């Protein structure tokens, strides 16, 4: 398979960001390409597929379109009532082996890792930056760890996943590759007044 190249290319430059502060308000980092597999099913058979996932992969499928469930290095995001994202690390082969057992009448699986740029936003001002464009309440009570939301920032569709973290709020933002540069420009401009840094791509 061809290597996935960063969509940000020359616009991504690691270094200090905006107003110097004693501590960085925001840290931005492009993440390495994800193994991302989308599974789309049909209402009549989706329950059986969810049971099969639980039995064979050991991961409970979330009952809502907000919660992320994780086992080992595989996470499941329910991005629609009958649509799942598998976000996989090295064990993506296990997920692929499972999806290959599904018949065409059960579900359709598509690899979409090439189509998304993933940006990690951390730091004490991470919520402030996101809420400059994101119409979602990111307070701890409304948006705790292991919750995600699909929404829009700067007219760009995004999926925001709040990560488990003991070091302040941390978010992964999934952006369609074709909008990655536009989103990155918005993000840097929104974060600059808060001070921070851009890390080398992971």
């Amino acid at each position, binding site marked *: 398979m061809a290597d996935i190249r960063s969509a940000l290319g020359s616009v991504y430059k690691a270094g200090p960001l905006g107003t110097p502060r004693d501590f960085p308000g925001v840290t931005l980092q492009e993440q390495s390409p994800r193994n991302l597999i989308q599974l789309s099913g049909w*209402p009549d058979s*989706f329950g059986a597929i969810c049971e099969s996932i639980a039995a064979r992969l050991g991961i*409970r499928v979330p*009952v809502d379109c907000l919660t992320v469930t994780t086992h080992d290095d595989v996470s499941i995001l329910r991005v629609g009532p009958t649509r799942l994202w598998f976000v996989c690390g090295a064990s993506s082969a296990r997920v692929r082996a499972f999806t290959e057992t599904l018949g065409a009448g059960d579900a359709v699986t598509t690899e979409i890792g090439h189509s998304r740029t993933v940006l990690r936003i951390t730091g004490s001002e991470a919520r402030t930056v996101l809420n400059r464009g994101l119409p979602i309440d990111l307070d701890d009570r409304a948006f705790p760890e292991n919750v995600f939301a*699909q929404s829009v920032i700067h007219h760009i569709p995004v999926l925001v996943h709040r990560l488990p973290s003991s070091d302040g709020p941390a978010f992964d933002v999934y952006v369609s590759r074709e909008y990655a540069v536009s989103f990155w420009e918005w993000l840097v401009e929104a974060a600059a007044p808060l001070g921070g840094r851009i890390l080398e791509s992971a």
Partner: protein
Amino acid sequence: MLRITCPYCGERDYVEFGYGGDAENTMPELSDTDIGRWADYVFFRNDPKGEHAEFWHHQHGCRQWLRVVRNTVTHEVISVRPASETDAPTQGKQVEVA
């Protein structure tokens, strides 16, 4: 401000949604040859002052079509349910699988 409670995603701002038209406009049977009913279906829309059923697409969220009853005067959203369902209107998260 218009906020819609998606049955799958919860309460969201209207910027995540796209308006999909009148949900009270029923297409005649394809075998119906009455030109008046077809003209009414294709060209004419009610413009109610008050409650109105509409299709909205949660295009930046779960990508589902919803049937929303909205007050056109106050923008109050009275009910939301998946457009694929024909049951009584519902609101709030209600996905049940597994």
